[in-house]
């Protein structure tokens, strides 16, 4: 299936440290999106990277995409307690269907 699979399943870091999460998928994609979910704000879109892009930045977020390896990574720099959440990658192969993995649960300790 096209479902993204995130790794690690859980990550615990101290405030100020960087957090890196990885995603693998199986078939060709149109783009790949990262979402964050926490109890306060629900599921929120973070960043989208297109299949012809290799790296993208947005604030403290940096996403990379390697289509030859069918993998992506999300880096959060200078993490904050408020970054505590589950992070999902969602590959998009058609023009509408997102397929989510189980996510990475990130805990940022103050």
């Amino acid at each position: 299936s096209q479902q993204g699979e995130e790794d690690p399943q859980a990550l615990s870091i101290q405030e100020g440290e960087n957090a890196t999460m990885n995603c693998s998928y199986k078939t060709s994609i149109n783009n790949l999106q990262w979402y964050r979910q926490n109890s306060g704000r629900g599921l929120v879109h973070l960043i989208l990277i297109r299949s012809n892009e290799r790296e993208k930045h947005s604030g403290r977020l940096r996403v990379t995409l390697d289509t030859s390896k069918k993998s992506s990574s999300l880096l959060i720099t200078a993490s904050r307690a408020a970054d505590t959440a589950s992070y999902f990658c969602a590959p998009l192969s058609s023009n509408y269907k997102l397929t989510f993995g189980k996510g990475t649960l990130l805990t940022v300790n103050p």
Partner: protein
Amino acid sequence: GAGVSQSPRYKVAKRGQDVALRCDPISGHVSLFWYQQALGQGPEFLTYFQNEAQLDKSGLPSDRFFAERPEGSVSTLKIQRTQQEDSAVYLCASRSRGSGSYEQYFGPGTRLTVT
């Protein structure tokens, strides 16, 4: 502006009861999606509407699940004869039509518990 809203936020149903979950998408958004999220899992696609047309219902788990969007705005997900395995959070998302607009905006979800 207002985001995607869903109601009710919580629903407890006895096994065998029918339930109806409502989604109000962002005004003007053409595309609407329903997802089911079990505890500890990521959201799973259920169905997709473009305006009032249901273009993909491949993710609906059984014929007890039915979704509609008769006027191309508000959508209702109906589950008949609920079973315990239907317990999950049901998420609705909408998306605009703009070129290259792939970002989906999610509502807060309806947490369904079947007892």
